[in-house]
């Protein structure tokens, strides 16, 4: 009888092509996702060396980071010349190398991490890579998925493998049930708050426990998406009936007898009883409140009921970092988080740009208007999410409330396209990073869940969404 294995061990073992004495492995890659920003130099490298893409049928490309999200983009012209050149380079590379491609004007276009699962490219037990750190998203399916740099993009294009050493196993268990108004985003931020942005460095995290099982596939993607903000190489959730149900019938998922064969294997993808984890973190779901970030690192997390901390509350190098963050964010220690005034609300990104996220925000906004002078934007994660939201009447709720209803893309999550914050502009954002300058030069970001973002749009300040839920119950 072999030793008990973790889910990560099982997927890893199923993909080792060769192993050297020092433990360095050649790992086979089942799916390679590509976008326009981190790939041009890799394709250029292939051309210079006269190398083809080894497995074009396993390679999927979509432009997302740079594309405008205004509805006039259907005219096909990207005003920013550098952005246009990058998107055109991807158009050409996809065609020249014969890879699967969803161009800007295809309704299936969207953020690469939303398109992959939506089209059934992402399946349990796979290895998935992309030149983008939020590739961790696909771990929600029980796939080993992580970000790589451009040199590795070129390596995967040329060889369909990566040179890797195995990470350690970390278990993050969320026991019990979430309270109303608390979401997957709050779980993932609370975990980072507890472990720090370096807490997962060197590990692959498996998220488990009742609160994780209870999440929809959309929620699980939100949790795994931010594994990287905790420093982990990847985040994983064991596949179950919800996963199989989500996958079934998607365009690139197996069909008929092949689906049954796949299912047979997928059902073996769980951590064996007694398998070893090098690190274990346990949080109680009941104790997680809706959270917001106050600083410029995703670990700067507090419950919405909290107050802005003082640099002296921290230790070591974090004291200076906190001082710098407070200065950058224009906040004063002791200030109540709910007193922080917001200029802008952004709902979207690979973290929270799926249909369930839009439903959660629309639920809070229904029949209401955003605060006067508030700038508010919804950017669906894909053209198909956008179409579904229109069909469900969510788009109209956003528009009636005063939100801009945009086309799909990464948008203000990283502000490579025209959707940016101006200097000092303060944003409640459903994205994943609150770094200095992330959403625009000197822009100020507070990371929140979609429901919390909607609540802030209505009141004009960071708000505990649970108070609004109580209101609607009373009414």
């Amino acid at each position: 009888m072999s030793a008990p294995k973790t889910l990560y061990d099982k997927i890893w073992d199923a993909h080792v092509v060769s192993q050297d004495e020092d433990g360095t492995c050649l790992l086979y890659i089942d799916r390679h996702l590509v976008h326009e920003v981190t790939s041009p130099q890799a394709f250029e490298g292939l051309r210079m060396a006269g190398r083809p893409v080894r497995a074009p049928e396993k390679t999927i490309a979509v432009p997302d980071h740079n594309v405008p999200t205004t509805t006039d983009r259907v005219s096909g012209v990207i005003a920013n010349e550098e952005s246009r050149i990058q998107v055109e380079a991807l158009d050409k590379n996809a065609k020249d190398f014969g890879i699967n491609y969803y161009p800007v004007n295809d309704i299936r276009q969207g953020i690469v991490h939303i398109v992959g699962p939506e089209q059934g490219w992402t399946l349990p037990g796979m290895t998935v890579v992309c030149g983008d750190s939020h590739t961790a998203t696909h771990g929600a399916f029980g796939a080993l998925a992580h970000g790589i740099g451009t040199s590795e993009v070129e390596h995967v294009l040329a060889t369909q493998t990566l040179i890797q050493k195995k990470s350690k196993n970390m278990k993050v268990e969320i026991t019990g049930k979430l309270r109303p108004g608390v979401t997957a985003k709050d779980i993932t931020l609370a975990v980072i708050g507890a472990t720090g942005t370096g807490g997962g460095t060197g590990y692959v995290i498996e998220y488990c426990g009742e609160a994780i099982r209870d999440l929809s596939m959309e929620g699980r993607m939100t949790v795994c998406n931010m594994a990287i903000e905790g420093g982990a190489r990847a985040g994983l959730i064991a596949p179950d009936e919800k996963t199989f149900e989500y996958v079934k019938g998607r365009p690139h998922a197996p069909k008929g007898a092949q689906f049954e064969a796949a299912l047979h294997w997928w059902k073996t993808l769980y951590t064996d009883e007694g398998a070893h984890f090098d690190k274990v973190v346990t949080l109680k779901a009941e104790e997680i409140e809706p959270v917001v970030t106050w600083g410029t690192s995703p670990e700067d997390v507090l419950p919405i009921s909290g107050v802005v901390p003082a640099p002296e509350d921290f230790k070591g190098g974090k004291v200076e970092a906190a001082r710098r963050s407070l200065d950058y964010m224009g906040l004063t220690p002791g200030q109540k988080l709910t007193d922080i005034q917001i200029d802008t609300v952004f709902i979207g990104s690979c973290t929270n740009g799926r249909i369930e996220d839009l439903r959660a925000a629309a639920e809070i906004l229904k029949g209401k208007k955003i605060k006067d002078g508030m700038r508010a934007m919804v950017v669906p994660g894909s053209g198909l999410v956008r179409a579904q939201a229109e069909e469900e009447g969510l788009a109209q709720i956003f528009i009636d409330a005063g939100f801009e209803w945009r086309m799909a893309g990464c948008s203000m999550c990283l502000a490579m396209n025209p959707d940016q914050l101006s200097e000092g502009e303060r944003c409640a954002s459903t994205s994943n990073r609150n770094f200095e300058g992330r959403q625009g030069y000197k822009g100020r970001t507070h990371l929140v869940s979609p429901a919390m973002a909607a609540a802030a749009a209505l009141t004009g300040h960071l708000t505990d969404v649970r108070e609004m839920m109580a209101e609607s119950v009373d009414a």
Partner: protein
Amino acid sequence: MEKFTKFTGIAAPMPLVNIDTDMIIPKIFLKTIKRSGLGVNLFDEMRYDREGNEIADFVLNKPQYREASILIAGDNFGCGSSREHAPWALADFGIKVIVSTSFADIFFNNSFKNGMLPIVLPQEQVDILMKDAEKGSNARMTVDLESQEITTSDGTVIKFDVDPFKKHCLLEGLDDIGLTLEKASAIDSFETQMAQARPWI
């Protein structure tokens, strides 16, 4: 890739923790389709004001650190986005070695692919190097990859660990893709097996 063996250079202190890749190279410089020329925009928002003038008290703008080739950095260096533009910008500026108590995983790997050596050391040893770096351009450190040693300006020797395969690639200036393609037959047979075992992929 250029071989990395032994060199002596100026070390710049950057004690700030969690220096992320957005700080190292802001996204406006990610629109390039080339690898070269990013050094001038390294740490752009910390290094220049809105008009493009240098901010005098930023470490790499100080006369004694303008030629730095080693960074002594705070914990969790290179966290955030996977952009290889970050190591491209550092390498283009002339940085060859970065020392910290920890690095973000993707950044760590990306650095080796660009002939740079990221070194992880315990806090006490990083503190020694940080202090030495604060002496300015008189404090030249020597980094010897073969013997895995850093020698400070006053002769203190600090040993460091490095993955043997990555060390080999740096010392020889090897191209990963070329190495892997030597194993093409192993990849072929893996694919043949998988076509049987997991045909849906």
